[in-house]
């Protein structure tokens, strides 16, 4: 029985949520198609091996640990070469990366090195005979394409948040390996890694996203959005393209067709009219709340709960109410 490969993404000595999602998805794929082991590749600076047991919790049978000082920051060339060499040697039937920024950078390089095709940003996958059948949102999320991928191994990137990581605990065996290419010889050198906003949650990791649009009227009023995020305690702040274009928020906060696609448990749209470009990035959120002064705004067509009114007037009241509700638990 062929095994399944997963890339376990880490940053700054900690595993990212998408690492568990990739391992858990590989476990599910293996279990649904006759078994076999899940082998996770974990690479980083010396010390990263300590994270291996966390991957066992989500179903990894083997964790291949590659420790190297040159891998402290993501080193795409060395990581791609290492993943490709391992995938080739391991005879895997499928290799799963996250469709995170790093996964979307790595997986195409790996696929091209191996001369195999890949499916990107998939929300589900299953084997049908020897082919892997995947679902992939396209056309700004307005069309779902079902694709059939032949050739072995099948490489996919899995949309973050599309499948929650499920525990399937086991004692993972740890294997040590060397990078397949010297990280110091990479042609692209990471000069600096700036981790944004201190301890703030990233919009890809946060279970709650509070997002602001032009209805906030100014960059200063985003303080009210940040206050609401702080009241939730597990929220990140997002924005529409209009807002990031105006420089009120950084481009990296943009949610939408040309920005990030998110699917949190709760999405709160504040002063957002609901342009298609924005809805493409958040329509898969579990629960959507919208506050907008225009009761005809398209955002109310996708929102589960709406309040019609001036967002600047409503926000402080909502923040206080959320704080109180959180305090009660």
């Amino acid at each position, binding site marked *: 029985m062929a095994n399944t490969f997963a890339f376990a993404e880490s940053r700054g000595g900690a595993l990212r949520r998408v690492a568990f999602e990739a391992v858990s998805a590989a476990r599910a794929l293996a279990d649904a198609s006759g078994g076999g082991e899940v082998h996770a590749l974990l690479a980083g600076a010396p010390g990263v091996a300590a994270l291996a047991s966390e991957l066992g919790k989500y179903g990894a049978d083997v964790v291949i640990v590659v420790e190297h000082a040159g891998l402290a920051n993501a080193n795409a060339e060395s990581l791609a070469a290492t993943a490709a060499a391992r995938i080739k040697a391991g005879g895997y039937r499928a290799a799963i990366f996250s469709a995170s920024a790093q996964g979307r*950078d790595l997986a*195409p390089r790996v696929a091209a090195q191996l001369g195999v095709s890949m499916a990107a940003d998939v929300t589900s996958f299953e084997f049908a005979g020897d082919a892997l059948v995947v679902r992939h949102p396209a056309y700004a999320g307005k069309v779902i394409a079902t*694709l059939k991928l032949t050739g072995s191994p099948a490489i996919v990137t899995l949309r973050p948040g599309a499948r929650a990581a499920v525990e399937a605990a086991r004692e993972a065996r740890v294997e040590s390996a060397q990078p397949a290419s010297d990280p110091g010889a990479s042609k692209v050198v990471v000069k600096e890694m700036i*981790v944004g906003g201190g301890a703030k949650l990233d919009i890809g990791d946060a279970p709650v996203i509070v997002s602001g649009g032009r209805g906030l009227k100014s960059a200063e009023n985003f303080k009210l959005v940040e206050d609401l995020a702080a009241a939730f305690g597990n929220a990140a702040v997002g924005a529409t393209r209009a807002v990031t274009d105006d420089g009120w928020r950084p481009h*990296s906060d943009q949610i939408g067709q040309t920005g990030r696609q998110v699917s949190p448990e709760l999405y709160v749209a504040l002063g957002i009219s609901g342009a298609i470009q924005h809805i493409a990035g958040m329509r898969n959120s579990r629960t959507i709340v919208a506050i907008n002064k225009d009761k005809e705004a398209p955002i109310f067509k996708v929102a589960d*709960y709406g309040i019609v009114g001036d967002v600047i007037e409503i926000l402080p*009241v909502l923040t206080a109410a959320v704080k109180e*509700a959180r305090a009660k638990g």
Partner: protein
Amino acid sequence: MKIAVCIKRVPDMETRFKIAANGTSVDESGLKYDMSDFDGYAVETALQLNEKQGPGETVVISLGPDVVQEQLRKALSMGADRAVQLKADRVPADGLAIARALAAELKEGGYDLILFGRQAVDSANATVGPMTAELLGLPCATAVSTLDIANGRATARRDLEGATEVVEFALPAVVSVDEGMPRARYPSLKGIMAAKKKPLEVKPAQLGDERISIEKMELPPERAAGRIVGEGPGAVPELVRLLHTEAKVL
């Protein structure tokens, strides 16, 4: 610098898409087309680099049937010098096939820089750029939000989730551009007239094997209609109650 920009023709995403009768594509009737947003940034980036850094050449390349000449002409009217159509009866679903055809065209081109958009806005794969770089054995930076080039070296910023990476590499290189890069300029009347006389070469695309087929396309399920809880700050307690007891997210 000699810069290649790979662009894709895509439908306007504001459209309400319908699925075609074959069930494996969108209904193309009535669709409006343009070059993919990020590809427009890539063309603009190339033009600005060559405008700033003196004599250079910007070559735009697109793979697909003859209709892609519309987008190639648009890039020419923005200021690109010449265009190449890699002719194929359709754009394959397999990014590696596209990358192979592009790499075959780019390989002997002597380009200092090869630009892509971060992803095509229709298929949303973001695979062709880095695959092409890999096939050409060139350094590659994906999804950059800034790009500075001096003395044959490039510095770029890449926005990762919750972090930003600053990378440096030597040219020739492959770069895909993200938000943050300059928006495509509107072609001037003079540019549109000039574009008609610029060379547009048509060559067969060397796609090779394709290993991805589209089995089905469908519209996602509509979200159930929501409800307006109320108006103004007075509706907040009811909203919070519903988030707590019904949606169970608070």
